[in-house]
């Protein structure tokens, strides 16, 4: 199965200004092998990928593809040479307003040799061939903007594969997929591996890595800090090489709470769904886990007043709670760190300080006039509290790594005391060390409020929560105290067994 190195990178360097991002990276990819690249955010993974895929110019070093010198000036050149990249941001890979068929054949519409006229029948024929080759079960006439995120991802990958690449780079491809969808992706990766494609797979997810990796390459601070290719693979060693310190898989000491903060009674969030009843206690960190699309975000939005429940009632600290808007929820002390920070959290035009103060401007203003000194002091305090790595509170968020951006989002809502603190997928696109920092901060500050997390990854729930609830089909189907969790039962509930079996 192991072939010779089809793609080789040697001594690759790259700096942005005085900031050296890559300090001499050497890497080999073999045909018919999946090489997993691990690295914390800011380690230089994205920069490496962008150089290989022709987006950035390299600062130094050499690259070769099948013995030939490889120096793409544009992404199109890289693709033509047979090095294809599926980027993390799915919407970069598809054109939302066109249908699936056109998306799959988009790259044949331009370049030399492309016919002058657009022939819909031919496009559909070619698209069907591409879709069949990778077992894509999506209506080819559907508009991409109407597809789910997961389907868009599959289209983006299928589009990349239409080039029949020698080297395929997948940048965190499963970050927005449910596990069933991820399985489809893994099957595809297996098939490509058998066809002899050299695959570079970038991921944070241990489950992906265990499932796919033939080799693991760890990256830290712009250099390769470890290569692991002896079977059985040393996963722990790879993680350590990436973090540069021993991570402690501390078992959570599960707390229980005496005083109820929020009581939900008979809440129905979707037509036909069974009602949800639960109680969240003071000082408790509760994680709700479940697959993508089971209603986690709907429940979070209902608690935050952005969405109305179909039935049921909520009580907070003994008083009825029925928020009509986000503003009302915030006034009642219910804060939400929303899912997907890029679209629903970060205000791109604002610097760090202004992003932090955003929800609490009213409390930071006198007769409408902002107290700028208080705003700055708050931002500095929060940078300190969460250990945000930045030059100052005036930094643009775009200059921070993903993990630090997420810390800013959490810091924003931790600037004031919450009664109920909700975090929807707070660890998405966050490296392991930032994730641990955030989780530790949440647990350390948990007293005086109820904390509710929505996570798809089971690991994240196990690492963070006192109590784990499982969601399936828009309702809660199981409950576990995070001490000697019965993983088999939990997984069965996640997978959506018959409802009468569930708790």
């Amino acid at each position, binding site marked *: 199965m192991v072939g010779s190195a089809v793609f080789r990178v040697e001594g690759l360097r790259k700096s942005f200004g005085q900031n050296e991002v890559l300090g001499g990276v050497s890497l080999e990819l073999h045909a018919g092998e999946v090489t997993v690249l691990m690295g914390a955010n800011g380690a230089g993974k994205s920069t490496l990928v962008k150089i290989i895929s022709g987006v950035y110019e390299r600062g130094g070093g050499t690259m070769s593809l099948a013995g030939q010198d490889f120096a793409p000036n544009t992404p199109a050149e890289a693709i033509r040479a047979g090095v294809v990249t599926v980027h993390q941001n799915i919407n970069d890979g598809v054109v939302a307003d066109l249908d699936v068929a056109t998306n799959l054949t988009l790259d044949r519409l331009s370049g030399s040799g492309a016919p002058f006229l657009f022939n819909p029948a031919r496009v559909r024929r070619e698209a069907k061939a591409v879709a069949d080759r990778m077992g894509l079960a999506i209506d080819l006439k559907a508009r991409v903007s109407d597809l789910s995120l997961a389907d868009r991802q599959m289209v983006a990958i299928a589009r990349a594969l239409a080039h029949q690449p020698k080297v395929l780079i997948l940048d965190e491809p499963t970050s927005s997929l449910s596990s069933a969808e991820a399985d489809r992706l893994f099957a595809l990766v297996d098939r490509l591996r058998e066809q002899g494609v050299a695959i570079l797979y970038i991921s944070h997810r241990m489950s992906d890595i265990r499932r796919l990796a033939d080799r693991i390459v760890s990256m830290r601070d712009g250099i390769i800090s470890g290569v692991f290719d002896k079977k059985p693979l040393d996963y722990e060693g790879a993680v350590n090489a990436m973090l540069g310190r021993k991570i402690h898989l501390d078992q959570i000491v599960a707390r229980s709470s005496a005083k109820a903060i929020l009581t939900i009674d008979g809440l129905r969030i979707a037509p036909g769904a069974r009602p949800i009843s639960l109680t969240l206690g003071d000082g408790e960190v509760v994680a709700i886990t479940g697959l993508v699309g089971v209603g986690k975000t709907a429940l979070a939005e209902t608690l935050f007043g952005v969405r109305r429940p179909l039935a049921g009632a909520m009580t907070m600290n003994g008083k009825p709670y029925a928020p009509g808007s*986000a*503003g009302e*929820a915030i006034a009642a002390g219910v804060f939400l760190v929303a899912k997907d920070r890029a679209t*629903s959290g970060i*205000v791109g035009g*604002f610097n760090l300080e202004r992003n932090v103060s*955003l929800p609490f*401007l009213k409390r930071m203003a006198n007769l409408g006039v902002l107290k700028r000194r208080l705003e700055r002091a708050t931002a500095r305090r929060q940078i300190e509290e969460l250990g945000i790595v930045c030059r100052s509170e005036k930094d643009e968020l775009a200059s921070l790594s993903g993990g630090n951006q997420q810390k800013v989002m959490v810091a924003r809502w931790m600037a004031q005391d919450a009664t109920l603190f909700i975090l929807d997928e707070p660890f998405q696109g966050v490296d392991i060390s930032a994730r641990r920092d955030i989780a530790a901060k949440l647990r350390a500050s948990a007293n005086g409020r109820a904390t509710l997390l929505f996570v798809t990854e089971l690991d994240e729930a196990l690492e963070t929560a006192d109590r784990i609830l499982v969601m399936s089909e828009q309702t809660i189907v199981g409950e576990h105290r995070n001490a000697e969790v019965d993983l088999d039962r939990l997984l069965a509930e996640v997978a959506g067994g018959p409802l009468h079996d569930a708790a």
Partner: protein
Amino acid sequence: MTLRDHAIRYGFIVLLFGLVAYFAIAADGFVSPQSAVFIFQSVAITGVLALGVTATLVVGGFDLSIGSVATSAMMAAAYVMVVLEQNAVVAVVVCLLIGAIVGLINGWLIVYMRVPDLLATLGMMFLLVGLQRIPTEGRSIATGMTMPDGSVANGKFGDAFLALGRHRFDFFIPNLIPVSVVVLLVLAVLIWFFLEYTRFGRMMYAVGSNERAAELAGAPVKAYKIWAYVISGVFASIGGILLAARLGRGDIASGNNLLLDAVAAALIGYAVLGAAKPNAFGTAVGALFVGILLQGLTMMNAPYYTQDFVKGVVLVVALVFTFALSGRGRG
């Protein structure tokens, strides 16, 4: 900061001073209080409109109806005083109401009817251009005009109203600064303070940059958007009042250039101090820049018909500064 950062940040200001220095040497009489006041006066009305449209740009919108709001306000002021024979206060109140109501309708169309901002305000522009001609069957309004029904309109512009266009305040030199310039400066400071130093202004920027994030931070996004159009409408109607007071009649043919000049000033404002976003200070500087350039060229005997071309060049250069050089326009 690198040289490039400095160029982006101060380039336009340096250009402005360079221009002043050049005209000071090349054009006789360019450096004088009267000349300065004339420049301010020439940009006062477009400046007021530009400050208003800045508010809509801040929330990520656009208001193409400002020019027609201004001319409608001008016609309404003339109609109220000349035909209905009311006093100046009534005329001013009617104008402001028109601005506020048009702003509300624009906001309603955009927020609740989901019409894209450019199209909604374009429609409103056509509507107003037509509406302002209906009461007089397309004629300009002046004292002694014959009405469609054959009667003669005997009302006249009140002295108080005309003073808005003709009175000059003493400032070291007697009778130096016209009311319109004072209005411009006051409104510029007001809107600048509002956008930069109040939580409402801050939220408006948040709405313009990421609407969903602003909503999830508890902001009433719809209300902010509608308010932005109301501000724009009211500022435009103030511009219309100044125009009516300057002309002393309801001139159906005036005010054609208001929209383009105002929008140009606001967009030039993006480039000032490397802001790369709509901002009140930039808008004011943008308006002044155009005024200085035109005044200087006029004093150097450039023909009047080159003016629009010059404005266009300035706008394109400013947009290049903003979007290509700073790189922030790419988001």
